[in-house]
């Protein structure tokens, strides 16, 4: 190996390391503040790690705040949204990938158009629509809105995965005696699992961190999701950073678990060996 190649490799690794540090530093800071005792928070100046650590913030958040309820609400909303969106997106993506039908171009165009508006613009109309239906201040309403906003992008995502699966496979299944839906369920869907996992992950995290609609459609802490709940740590006169960060760390857990669960499906290459030699 020549010196230039070693240098190239080192530079490459260093660049990756720099990027990872940059990307993960806020998370580190979150963790650091969450374990810093209140009296050290302002007295120690800027340090990478406090001289003493405590889990008090976590204890307080779990025992004395409404955080567990926010957490449960978020879990319900994000989980349901991810599930419903992915099912719809899988069906939609399959149709976009395989079928020729009238107005397909228009439909795809329309789906794209929905992605062009800043959400803030739509808050008022959505509120106007949901309010008479009794869907404001309700988790169902939130799920409905999140699903509506996530399905278009998720559909394109799924379509891409289906496009990568040769149509020969379901045609072979249909000749073997399956109808189209059976072929979809037994042959295509198992091969699209990486796509399903990616879509689930994408929609789940999007719903988990969504703030604008949660803030506007939900009043009071009964139905609040976690991003809105975080605001309860901001009071009129002070911000309880330690507790807020502790809540933040806890909120990261489901997202991490979720990706841990689906990561093995995110690995591509399931269709290898299907066609040709």
């Amino acid at each position, binding site marked *: 190996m020549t010196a230039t190649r070693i240098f190239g490799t080192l530079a490459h690794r260093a660049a990756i390391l720099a990027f990872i540090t940059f990307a993960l530093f806020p998370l580190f800071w979150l963790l650091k503040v969450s374990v810093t005792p209140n009296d050290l928070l302002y007295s120690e100046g800027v340090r990478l790690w406090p001289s003493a650590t405590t889990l008090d913030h976590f204890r307080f958040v779990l025992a004395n705040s409404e955080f567990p309820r926010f957490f449960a609400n978020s879990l319900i909303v994000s989980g349901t949204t991810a599930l419903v969106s992915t099912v719809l997106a899988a069906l939609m993506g399959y149709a976009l990938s395989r079928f020729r039908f009238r107005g397909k171009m228009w439909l795809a165009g329309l789906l794209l158009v929905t992605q062009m508006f800043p959400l803030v613009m739509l808050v008022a109309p959505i509120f106007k629509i949901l309010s008479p239906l009794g869907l404001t201040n309700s988790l169902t309403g939130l799920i409905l809105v999140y699903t509506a906003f996530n399905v278009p992008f998720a559909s394109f995502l799924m379509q891409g995965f289906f496009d990568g699966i040769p149509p020969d496979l379901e045609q*072979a299944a249909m000749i073997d005696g399956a109808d189209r839906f059976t072929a979809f369920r037994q042959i295509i869907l*198992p091969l699209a699992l990486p796509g399903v996992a990616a879509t689930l992950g994408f929609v789940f995290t999007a719903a988990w961190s969504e703030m604008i609609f949660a803030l506007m459609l939900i009043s009071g802490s009964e139905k609040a999701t976690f991003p809105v709940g975080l605001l309860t740590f901001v009071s009129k006169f002070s911000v309880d950073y330690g507790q807020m960060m502790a809540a933040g760390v806890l909120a990261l857990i489901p997202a991490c678990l979720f990706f841990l669960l689906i990561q093995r499906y995110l690995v591509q290459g399931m269709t*290898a060996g299907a066609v040709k030699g």
Partner: protein
Amino acid sequence: MATMEIRSVSKNYGTIRVLDDINLQIGDGEFIVLVGPSGCGKSTLLRMIAGLEEITGGEIRIDDRVMNTLPPKGRDIAMVFQSYALYPHMSVADNMSYSLRLRKTDKPTITQKVRAASVKLGLDALLERKPKALSGGQRQRVAMGRAIVRQPKAFLFDEPLSNLDARLREQMRAEIRKLHRELGATSIYVTHDQVEAMTLADRIVAMHGGHIQQVGTPLDLYDRPANLFVAGFIGSPGMNFLAGDVAGGVLRLSDGRQVALPETMPAAMGGATLGIRPEHVLPAPAGQGALDATVDLVEPTGHGIILHLTLAGAVFKVLTHDRRWLSPGPAIAVSFPPEALHLFNAEGLRV
């Protein structure tokens, strides 16, 4: 097993007609090969029989039942794809038993049928493997196995050997032929390879431009091609063509030279094309044959020699097994045995 009937079938994609007025009767147990260059519509026709493409016009019948609107699962046919289309997440055994499982066949029967088929194809040691752990030839066999476990009414093959190397292709070709003799099932086989067509078929259907050009036994097509397309497509190297005018019992070439026609052919008909296969041309030293031609290239193939000549401004090939012609010199003469000549009229049809 089944008979099949294709009645004035046509297919449009939008305004483009890719198949026009296709008529074909297929007997019980017959091995039919659809052959033609790419884009001739042969695969489309096969997929219409399978139910994977809609039929624009006409009727397809299997055992006298109209299939037009029936989904593929209702037709009881098996198909081997060019890409093999094995289910990558299933083992070889599961791939082969999928159709039986869909039919809710009981377990012992499935095991027995898969075993029988896998022994027949030499796959019995691979049953637990996934397709990606198989070689191209093995995958091809699994695709065949998946078709035969079902004992369907008919087999459809869509260029099944195109992805194999030459030696394996030759071997599988013989196996397919043997398998057909054993099972006796009606088969339709699509290929662009005229050697496959000649060796496999009971009857060949030569297609071009969305039309059937000729239907017949391999030797029919070789000996009596119905038109210029079939004449040029069947045979390797392809038939030589000499264009000219027929008058007074001779064909006058563009350079003024003449070829005498046998008495069985019309003595006068205007513009025509004379065809002769390279293997029927008799080479001779220059000046000692019917026509002289310049030699461009000598291709020894081992079992023969292909001489590339220029005759009347066109490429003309001679296939000989006489090694004297390995170094023929700059020019040679060619003669044509009268019984080996084919004459086509100005429309390209056999006279």
